[in-house]
């Protein structure tokens, strides 16, 4: 299997006044196609920083990062945005759905941005909502959906442009235990169907469901 993520000696430092914060201290990580990786560790260990770098929303101070065979550690803002649109799917802890749009329209959003035509876009969105079990809720707005349903819409949106990599930041953090279990099952199904997943979590059940668990502490990967 080829490596979807190839991170080499990633360093991320922040300057806070006179002080320099070492968020990542030379992290190397390879994630292969169809892998399901959970990154765990205590708060402040650098796992979210690593996820931000993998999602091309932040740049490493030093080091090299390739996603799906493309160097992304020095992309311009516009190219990074386009890369995220076509190659990366994001699932956030707080869903971040557009409140004014229906479930289907939320899923259609990245498809429209990618230039997909109307009918094709609609069909693709409905297929994705069907996949996450929300076909019948397509016309509902986020405020009319439960937390679990909103997260499933967010997952459908993340999968819209068939990303090479699905990144999730505490996807069960806002859900109750039962809904969280449903979400874990959905992630397992996604991975079984071929999606490469990297998830950052404190949820032990979610981490246990991953095929590989990466432990972090003080900006480094353990072991």
């Amino acid at each position, binding site marked *: 299997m080829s490596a979807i993520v190839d991170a080499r000696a990633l360093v991320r430092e922040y300057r806070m006044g006179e002080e320099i914060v070492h968020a990542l201290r030379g992290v190397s990580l390879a994630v292969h196609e169809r892998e399901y990786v959970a990154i765990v560790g205590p708060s402040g260990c650098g796992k*979210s920083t690593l996820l*931000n770098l993998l*999602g091309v*929303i*932040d740049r490493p101070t030093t080091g090299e990062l390739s996603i799906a065979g493309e160097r992304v550690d020095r992309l311009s803002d*516009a190219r990074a*945005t*386009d*890369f*995220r*649109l*076509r190659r*990366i799917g*994001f699932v*956030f802890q707080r869903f*971040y*759905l*557009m*409140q004014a749009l229906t479930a289907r329209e939320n899923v259609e*959003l*990245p498809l429209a*941005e*990618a230039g997909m035509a109307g009918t094709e876009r609609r069909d693709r969105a409905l297929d994705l909502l069907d996949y996450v079990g929300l076909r019948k809720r397509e016309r509902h707005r986020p405020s009319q959906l439960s937390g679990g349903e909103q997260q499933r819409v967010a997952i459908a*949106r*993340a999968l819209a*442009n068939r990303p090479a990599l699905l990144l999730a930041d505490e996807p069960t953090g806002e859900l109750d235990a039962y809904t969280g279990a449903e979400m874990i099952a959905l992630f397992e199904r996604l991975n079984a169907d071929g999606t490469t997943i990297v998830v950052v979590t404190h949820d032990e059940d979610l981490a246990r469901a991953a095929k590989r668990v990466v432990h972090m502490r003080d900006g480094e990967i353990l072991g």
Partner: protein
Amino acid sequence: MRSRLAFLVLLVVPLRAIAPQGNPRSIAIDERLAADAGLRVGDRVVVASEPGLPGDTVVVAGIVQRRADPAEIARGEYRVRLHLDHLQSLLGYGDRVDRFGVKTRGAGSTGDALSRINAAAFGFRAHRSADVAVETSRTFAVVSRFHRAIGVITIVASAIFLLCIMLLKVDERRRDVAALRLIGCSTRTIVGSVVLEAAAVAVLGSVAGIGVGGAASWIVNRHYQAVYRTPLRFSIVTGDIVLLAVALSLVLGVVSGWLAARRLAHTAPLTLFGR
């Protein structure tokens, strides 16, 4: 050139309904007098130039609506129109008039008429009615300028207020904008959607504003027309005003939306998330 009904203000005292007589001359009275004295067309009354004089018995042949003339708003006197010769005899003026109107066939003949009247005799002074109107409306022109100044100040203050509101409203969406950027929406898309929404809100706001303005104008007109008993329209919502309002609102909405959205769209998503 011919003499017509004279448009002169006449003190008419006393004025009362009397029994029918021979073939009286006719007069026209304004509607305010008709209403206050309870007169109708066909009623016979006595008009005299001074209180206590015998006067002439006349018949009310017409009731005239007041003109929509701002100069007449504050005037409380009544108006009676008489035939010129009747008015002359009533006042004891003999064959004399102070002012009269001449209707011409067009702009060309107006100039010719002015020259001929002014040259007819010493002391004749002819003026275009438009010039007279301008001369007598100077006070209102000044008042109108004051109103315009107040309007401009109001608009500028409202514009600043709207701009601030718009900036705040867009800023409330920083997390939405951040999410849009994370899922790959371009700066152009984000700015475009905000500007489009701002334009739609501005147009809808304009339509609502025009509705409110129209209703307020109607109420103002009804109230003051009743108070002053005049057909004058005190408040007018013209097409130009509507166009100006919509254009101003649209420009303000689009500019403020564009400024706010551009600022957000060029901020790093992580900063927008507060990380």
